[in-house]
């Protein structure tokens, strides 16, 4: 082409915001902290005004967390919960993504399996607790099973929808080049659906972490869910109940931030609206 002067591309506009970029970072970190502080103050004031000596003040929860750290329990419990979520969730991804792609690609399979999936999907993991105990006894397998159940459906459904919503032009473009079925899958279908699958995975990880409390109601003797249930047994230790809640929330936040990093990779960034 006759020496085309490189056109100004979008990257130069989105990548470099100049002085405004720093402004942006500032509000991204400081504003949430301000909100958190306001929340803590409101919480503290709420407890003081109502004069409740059952619901703990933030400082009491902080002391509870420190006590847990000192007794070496916090690390143990966090590790136990993360272990169960990791395995339950990994299994859900390993089963849900291929199965979802399969359902999305073969219309007959979708018709055959979708009603069953939609029927199983709304059943709360709590309802599965008795089944989990009967099948897996009181071992780590039972909560892993519950977490698997909670996360496998959102993953499957999002992978299925990703294939069904895939722009047909990618498939047609690929068919131009005479790919085998396997090449078509690995070089086109998977990368084309990856952004939506990752979004599904992110949602599912949130769900998986959400059910950890319920999953640890089974007689396992470690984990953040166990911490909450154990603290209820321990008489008036609601500081520990709230400490467990706070830890679950904080770790959930970190998990979400980590998964969000996946969305920044070049292979999938095209699939998300400019953020």
């Amino acid at each position, binding site marked *: *082409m006759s020496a085309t002067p*490189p056109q100004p591309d*979008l990257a130069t506009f989105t990548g470099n915001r100049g002085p405004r970029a720093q402004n942006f970072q500032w509000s991204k970190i400081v504003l949430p902290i301000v909100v958190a502080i306001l929340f803590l103050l409101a919480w503290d004031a709420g407890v003081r005004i109502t004069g409740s000596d059952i619901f703990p003040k933030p400082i009491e929860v902080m002391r509870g967390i420190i006590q847990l750290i000192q007794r070496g329990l916090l690390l143990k419990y966090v590790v136990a919960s993360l272990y169960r979520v990791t395995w339950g969730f990994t299994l859900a991804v390993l089963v849900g993504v291929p199965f979802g792609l399969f359902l999305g690609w073969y219309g007959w399979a979708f018709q055959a399996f979708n009603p069953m999936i939609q029927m199983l999907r709304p059943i709360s993991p709590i309802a599965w607790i008795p089944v989990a105990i009967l099948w897996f006894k009181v071992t780590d397998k039972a909560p892993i099973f519950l977490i698997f159940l909670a996360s496998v459906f959102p993953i499957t459904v999002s992978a299925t929808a990703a294939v069904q919503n895939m722009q047909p032009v990618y498939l*047609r*473009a690929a068919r131009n080049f*005479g790919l085998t079925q396997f090449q078509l899958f690995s070089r*086109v279908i998977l*990368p084309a659906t990856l952004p939506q699958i990752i979004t599904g995975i992110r949602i599912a990880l949130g769900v998986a972490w959400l059910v950890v409390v319920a999953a640890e109601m089974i007689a396992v003797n470690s984990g953040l869910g166990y911490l909450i249930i154990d603290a209820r047994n321990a008489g008036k230790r609601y500081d520990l109940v709230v400490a467990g809640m706070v830890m679950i929330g904080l770790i959930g936040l970190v998990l979400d931030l980590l998964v969000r990093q996946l969305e920044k990779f*070049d292979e999938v960034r095209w*699939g998300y609206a400019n953020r």
Partner: protein
Amino acid sequence: MTNAKQPAIQVQNLWMSFPGKQAGEQIHVLERINLEVKAGEFVCIVGPSGCGKSTLLNIVGGFLPCSQGDVTVEGQPVAGPDPRRVFVFQENGVFPWLTVQENIGFGLLKKSVAERAGIVAHYIEMVGLHGFERAYPRELSGGMKQRVEIARALAANPDIIYMDEPFGALDFITRLKMRADLVRIWQSEKKTILFVTHDIEEAVQVADRVLVMSKRPATIQNIINVDLPRPRDLDSRGYLATRDEIFAAMGMSLRIGESEAEAARPNGAHAPKPQGLIPN
């Protein structure tokens, strides 16, 4: 490459209908289509929107089976898409998860790494994307993306390129430029191009021959030879006459504000007699 005698593309008595909304109802889209494209020729198909131009191109490209008729490409009946013929789509088919160079090299998996790199570099240079090898499509403008798609098609070294309104989504200036570039590339690469567009000016600017389709159920109504030297002067009398000839063949007026009845009059003031009508 095909031998010179044999047409690159031959369509004989092609019919196409789709099932309608009601049971048993059939919508006839294409009727009794006959066309021939010679090897190395640049042929445009124009027609009113919704007439079935794209359907015809998809059938020839092997993406759609026809209801009735014969489609022969390079001496063989069409059974599906074939890597020797590449399709360039109206909606951009560049893979957003690959870089520019990965996109262009997409069809070259069987080649060695070094060979592939050479071909990719050649076509990046040809379409003027030097410096954007590692850019992702989301970082490119619409025109640049369309160039990537064309380069990807060329890199696969096909005999024939099918183009379905490839510049439809671009702005006017970019479109003009892309047409010029496409003709230049076609001249150097000696490919056969079958090009669908609704833009009559575009057809006259690029094609050797223009096939004009009628309204649905569509058939080929006129074949107009664009016997103009390249590079084409868009102000020359020959260019304007050919353009007006196509406008007239499509029953359109060139005067904004004219009543529809006047405009639709077959032998309007501006239109020379239709010629090259396919005998039915």
